[in-house]
């Protein structure tokens, strides 16, 4: 039985606790890195991470991109949308097709 984790700064994620997701507020990237690795090794199948934090942990996140579990998904935090999530989708199109043929004009 797997669980779902939410990682990011407290203000962005405290609401998810009410839904029954496990929230892990972190202050700095270093702490986030350790937490992420621990969660990935633990039984979390989906880890939502705020875009702000994900930006600083890109090396860690790419390490899990080839494995089936966990799925690390970026969500916008309280301070707004950086567009990194959308950018990621475009990047996977680029990897697959060679160039972004679907969303390049959006």
């Amino acid at each position, binding site marked *: 039985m797997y669980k779902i984790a939410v990682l990011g700064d407290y203000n962005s994620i405290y609401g998810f606790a009410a839904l*029954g997701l496990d929230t892990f507020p972190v202050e700095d990237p270093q702490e986030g890195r350790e937490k992420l690795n621990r969660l990935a090794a633990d039984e979390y199948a989906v880890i939502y991470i705020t875009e702000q934090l994900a930006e600083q942990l890109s090396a860690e996140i790419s390490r899990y991109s080839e494995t089936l579990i966990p799925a690390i998904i970026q969500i*916008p935090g309280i301070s707004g949308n950086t567009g990194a999530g959308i950018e990621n989708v475009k990047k996977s199109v680029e990897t697959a097709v060679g160039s972004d043929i679907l969303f390049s004009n959006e």
Partner: protein
Amino acid sequence: MASTQVNPTRMELTKQKKKLVTAVRGHKLLKDKRDELMRQFLDLVRENMELRQKVEAGIRSANTNFVIAKAGMSEETLNTALMAPKQEVYLETGKKNVMSVDIPVFEYKTRTPDANDIYSYGFAFTSSDLDGAVKSLEDILPDMLRLAEVEKACQLMASEIEKTRRRVNALEHVIIPEAQANIKYITMKLDENERSTQIRLMKVKDMMLEEAHHYKEREAERGA
């Protein structure tokens, strides 16, 4: 053309021919795999984009709701209200095989079936805005899970497509032409060898006949 030296023997020729047949077959299969993967990927990635836009918009409005809720009550009350959640979400994970790529399938279960268990607080001290905020977040949860599933699948498929594409290209532009060039080289070399053997035999035959019948001596005698 042939970058590696091959021995021009019949055995090597058979080997190269077998290699070519395998390579051509593999090329066709991989090309089919790539095309099918690409078709499914494009469908999936469109869904991914739609879901992502929906989820991001949902989270943005939920965040706004939370800010409003926070404004209407003290920080302590809010923290206490959300401190001990009643509800818990579990995931049942499976995997689906799409053209040899394993993609995840998530199915979520809540600990209690009661939809109202997302409100982990008594309603006495919290503002109604908080209820709305929690509800708005709860509404996008199914979409968020679907997003996780689809986005992960897209990432996995994208890297598989890239790998397959490289393989197809390597077969098409390196392995197959090389095998063809090798086959041509060996065939020509073998033909050449055969011709030279033929000539050598003819020469030897001439010499042997000469030795047995002394044509040249007789020719000379007749001439004299």
